[in-house]
Structures are given as C-alpha cells and as structure tokens.
C-alpha cells in the first residue's frame, strides 16, 4: 500500500523546518512582519531541540555594560566558545551587534534574562577579558517562544518532519515534503512556500556516542540527525566546514551539554588543577578549559595522562547549591542533579570524570550570507545547521530573526508556484511506501550502527588518510545502497528513525569528500599523508555543493 499523501497542500509564504530556538525566533519575527508562516517540527516545539529544557548563557553585547568599543568586544568574543576561526568575521559582527535586541525581546516574552535583577555575566570568558555571557534563566524558553510565535499568528505543526525541499527548474525554492508521524501510519504532507528556513539543528548520532549500545546518550538533542544538512545538500545548497567538526565535553558516561555551567576546576585524579586559567573555582569565571580544548579529556586518556575530572570539592557550598539548583535548571541539565542525588554522590567529596564527546556537527553545515540565505534562492538557514556562523544560542536566535526579516522581503518578489506535480513527491512516495511495505528486512539500528562505525573508523578524529577515507567512502556507499534496498519500518516512529539514518548517510558522504579534499593537517582534521598545515588555506573555508551527480569542492575566502 502506498504511503498516504494528505489531501490539500499546505500553502504558506514562509515554511520553517524545525521549531528550536532559531525556528521559533524566526516564526515570531516573520509573523510579526505580517507574512504567513508555518513551522514543521518533528517533536513538539515546547520541548524540542538542544534548547528543549533550557539554556543559561546568552552571548551578547550590551553597550551600557560593555562600552562602545565594538572591535574590542569582537576580539574578545573571538576568544570564547562563540568565536574562533570557523566563523565568517562579518557574520560574527552581524549576530553580535543584534544580541541586545533579542535579549530585550525575550525578556518581554516572559523569559527571565535578569534572575539577579541586573545584567549579570558569568562564565565562558577568558580571565582578564570582559564577560559577555549573560547568565539568564531559560528553563521556560521553549514554551515562552512557542506561545509568542502562535500569538503572532504563526502556525505550528508538531510531529511533522520535513524531509525534502522542493525546488523548481530554475533552482528556486517552491515548497517542501513533510511526513506526519503522529499516528501509527505515516502520512505525507506537501507544502507550497515561497521561502523555506532550515532550522533543523545539529547532526548527532552520525558518530558513535560515548555509550555505543545506547546511541541516544548524547550532549545534543538526539532527535537532531542532520535532516537539515541532508535536505539542503540534496536541494543543491552549498555546505561549509563539515570536515572540521569536533566534539563537546561533559560527564564521561552521561552525556550532557552545559559544561560551562559547572563551577569547578579541571583536575587530575589527585584533585590537582591541571589548567593555567584559575586556581580557585568561581561562578564568575567558570572553567574555560573545556571551552578551549574540549578534546583534552580524550587526548589525556590516549596519552596515558588521564583520567580528567571536574573537581567541585573546593567550590563554596553557596556556589554548589547555585550550580546544582539554579544553573543546571536554567540550562536544562538538571538531570545531572537528579542523577547525582539518586546515586548519593556528594560533589563536596567527589569529582566527576569528564570525557570528550564525539563529532556532532554543531555549527558545521549550510553556508549562508548576511541575509541568512543559502546558495539556493529562497532557502534560508539558521542555528546549529549553519556552517559559517557560531554564537550557539545567541547566534541561533539572531540568525533566526535575520532569516525571517530577509524572507519577509524576499517573498514579496516571487510568485507562488504549484508544487502538486513535482516529480520528487512521487519519487519519495515510492521510496517511503517500499520501506513501509516490507515485511522483513533491516532494522534502522543495524544501518545506524554500521554508519557510526564507518564514520569513526575511516573519518574519525584520530587520524585520516587518502586510503582510509577512500575505503570509508566506498563502504558508506555500499551501506547506503543496502539500506535503501532493505530498511523497513513497522510504524511511523520507526519510519522516522529510518529517514534519520538515510539523512545521516547523506551528511556522511560530503563529509568524506571534504576530508579527502583537505590535503593538510589542521586540528581537529589530522592527515597521516599530509602532516603539514597549508598556510595558503588560512582564512579559507572549504565548501561543497552537488547538482545532479556533479559535486563541486572549493576553498572560499572568509568574509
């Protein structure tokens, strides 16, 4: 039986794939600009994505606190987790210059941006520099942004994942294909839209996690599976920097984000601090060591000098209470507090071992311009799916706003185009029906596990070479063919997992191609056959795009 297509095409001006921070911010702004906007979210926007349960740091520039020297702010922000070489300097200036606007907006929407009553900046900053990370209470950010977007007139379709962008013969966006997974049987939903924003987040589960048998144990939201990267790549959009992805760090076998919320010292097994940044735990500075070198926990284990701990035994009782019961709640990682309490672990006596997590493709992906538009006309991107913007939460929120503002102007310049006979709709219906029709075959976890092994063994963080990458790419393509021929699903939940694996393969492939084409060593990309760093590639981003079977790789200058 073919997978059903819902009667009636959903028509809108602006369609948003993913209702995380950037998607909801974009929905709010676009609706306020008076254009019709629909958010398609595979979970529920009130609790989805990496910000599902909260955030506690918002990188921002507030002139009354930081002064008028914007260039100083840019220089110092570049030394934090929200800066660095893998971001176009123009984009850093763009999002940073508009952070205060978003902070004020969020405050007006009921998100507590000043829990202490004043603008309070803590953590994530280099000692000696000004502090830019506004310590706020984001535990209700998702419900608050959802309510605000809906109040403005945005339509939110939960349990509906977008699977493909529809482009016309000129390569312009005209709609998208989605799948509603709310019932046992999946149902395809066809969208007609003048502009589409991909706000689908990172690509977790591409690499083995810290507990490979439990692949949803991840610091990022495990529902973020590169769907946006894959959709954009298939639609012909240019991606950037995939091969330069690294990983996060946190408690070794209980993967959580929010390492910057811990108040402690990075220590060895004897409790001795091993980093040069501070000798006393303080809530003002936090521990910036893991921001600067999140791979240190892996490196120290491999060198035989580990394990490495987050040591809070010298943190004051007041700061510990603040961390466990305020900070972790605001950041949405209070499952750490719950886990510690259930297991009677007292941080005044015990250190927690930290580990380096695997590649998650957070801020490696779609290459966008200052209007947040990708190389495909009408296709926008914001948030962790973007490859040339960092800024994490703040970058996601501001670029969501920028995308909506740009799209509100863009949609006035293009006409609606009927998508009902688009050939990709029938093609996808055939594929989806084959997956649902099989009575036996490969379960999605089989393909997911092999994909993770191939990515880790042949395109991992340890070492890469032409032979390894060539072999890995060959195996990935073999797996992909088998997966298309054999994967099956018994219900819409499993069907969603199948689509996620197929998308992850579509992210892995360009990653291999980019790793092959970067013939140099530049951490975290290490080539056994090209051990030097090629200085000619400084200040350049590698990009990839695919049109039909033609793949184009390039090194473009940072702008």
């Amino acid at each position, binding site marked *: 039986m073919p997978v059903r297509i819902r009667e009636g095409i959903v028509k809108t001006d602006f369609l948003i794939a993913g209702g995380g921070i950037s998607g909801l911010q974009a929905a709010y702004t676009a609706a306020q600009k008076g254009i019709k906007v629909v958010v398609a979210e595979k979970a529920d926007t009130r609790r989805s994505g990496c910000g599902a349960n909260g955030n506690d740091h918002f990188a921002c520039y507030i002139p009354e606190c930081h002064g008028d020297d914007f260039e100083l702010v840019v220089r110092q922000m570049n030394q934090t987790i929200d800066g660095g070489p893998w971001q176009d300097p123009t984009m850093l200036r763009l999002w940073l210059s508009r952070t205060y606007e978003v902070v004020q907006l969020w405050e007006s929407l009921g998100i507590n941006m000043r829990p202490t009553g004043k603008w309070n900046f803590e953590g994530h900053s280099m000692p000696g520099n000004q502090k830019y990370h506004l310590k706020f209470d984001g535990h209700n950010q998702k419900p608050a942004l959802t309510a605000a977007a809906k109040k403005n007139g945005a339509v939110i379709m939960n349990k509906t994942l977008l699977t493909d962008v529809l482009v016309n013969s000129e390569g312009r966006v005209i709609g998208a294909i989605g799948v509603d997974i709310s019932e046992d049987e999946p149902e395809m939903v066809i969208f007609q839209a003048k502009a589409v924003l991909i706000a689908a987040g990172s690509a977790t589960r591409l690499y083995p996690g810290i507990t490979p048998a439990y692949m*949803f*144990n991840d610091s990022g*939201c495990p529902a973020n599976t590169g769907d946006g990267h894959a959709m954009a790549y298939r639609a012909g959009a240019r991606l950037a920097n995939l091969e330069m992805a690294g990983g996060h760090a946190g408690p070794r076998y209980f993967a959580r984000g929010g390492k910057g919320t811990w108040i402690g010292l990075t220590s060895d097994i004897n409790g001795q601090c091993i980093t040069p940044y501070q000798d006393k735990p303080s809530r003002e500075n936090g521990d910036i060591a893991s921001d600067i070198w999140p791979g240190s926990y892996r490196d120290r284990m491999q060198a035989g000098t580990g394990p490495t*701990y987050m040591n809070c035994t010298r943190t004051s009782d007041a700061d510990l209470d603040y961390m466990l019961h305020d900070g972790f709640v605001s950041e949405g990682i209070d499952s750490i507090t719950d886990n510690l309490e259930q297991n009677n672990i007292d941080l005044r006596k015990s250190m927690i071992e930290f580990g380096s997590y695997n590649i998650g493709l957070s801020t490696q992906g779609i290459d966008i311009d200052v209007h947040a538009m990708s190389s495909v006309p009408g296709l926008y991107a914001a948030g962790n799916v973007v490859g040339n913007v960092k800024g994490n939460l703040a970058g996601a929120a501001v670029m969501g706003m920028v995308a909506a503002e740009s799209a509100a102007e863009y949609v006035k310049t293009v006409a609606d185009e009927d998508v009902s006979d688009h050939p990709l709709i029938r093609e996808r219906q055939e594929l989806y029906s084959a997956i649902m029709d099989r009575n036996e075959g490969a379960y999605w976890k089989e393909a997911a596990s092999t994909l993770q092994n191939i990515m880790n063994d042949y395109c991992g963080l340890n070492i890469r070479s032409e032979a390894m990458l060539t072999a890995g790419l060959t195996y990935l393509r073999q797996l992909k063919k088998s997966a298309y021929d054999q994967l099956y699903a018994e219900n819409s939940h499993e069907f969603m997992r199948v689509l996620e694996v197929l998308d992850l393969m579509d992210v892995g492939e360009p990653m291999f191609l980019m790793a092959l084409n970067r013939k140099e060593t530049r951490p975290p990309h290490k080539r056994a056959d090209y051990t030097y760093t090629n200085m000619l590639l400084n200040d350049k981003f590698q990009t990839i795009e695919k049109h039909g079977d033609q793949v184009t790789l390039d090194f473009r200058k940072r702008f």
Partner: protein
Amino acid sequence: MPPIIDKQKCNQCGYCAQICPLDVIKVIKNDDKKAVIVKYPDECWHCRACEKDCRQHAIRMRYPLSHLMLHMDVQKEG
C-alpha cells in the same frame, strides 16, 4: 526503564507522549481504555521533559547503569 510512570497517578492525558523530544512514550488505546507506556526506553534522552511537564507528578526518571556518573573521592587540601 527510564522514565517510570506511576500508573496510580497517571490520568492518561497523553501530554508526556506529545512533548517527548524523542517520541519514546505512546498512548495505547484498547477499546475504550487508554494506557501510557514507555515504548522505546532505549531512545530516552533523560532530559526530564516528561517529568517536569506532568501535571499529575506521575513520572520520575531512572538513570540506567549504562549512564553511570563516574566519580572519584578526593582528599580535601587543608
């Protein structure tokens, strides 16, 4: 099995199933009876969204041994 739903307290409203970011909780309907079950426990993120949002306070999180919080006692310096 994370999370654990207290059947005595649960009123089968299904809100947890609706908001779970990983779609691991399902409302099962048999004739006119409903039950809320954790259908895909291995896919739980342990984010506590279900626990926090349950108006009946019927859900608690259990952390599996696979997610052990590795810790080491340290001798405090004088």
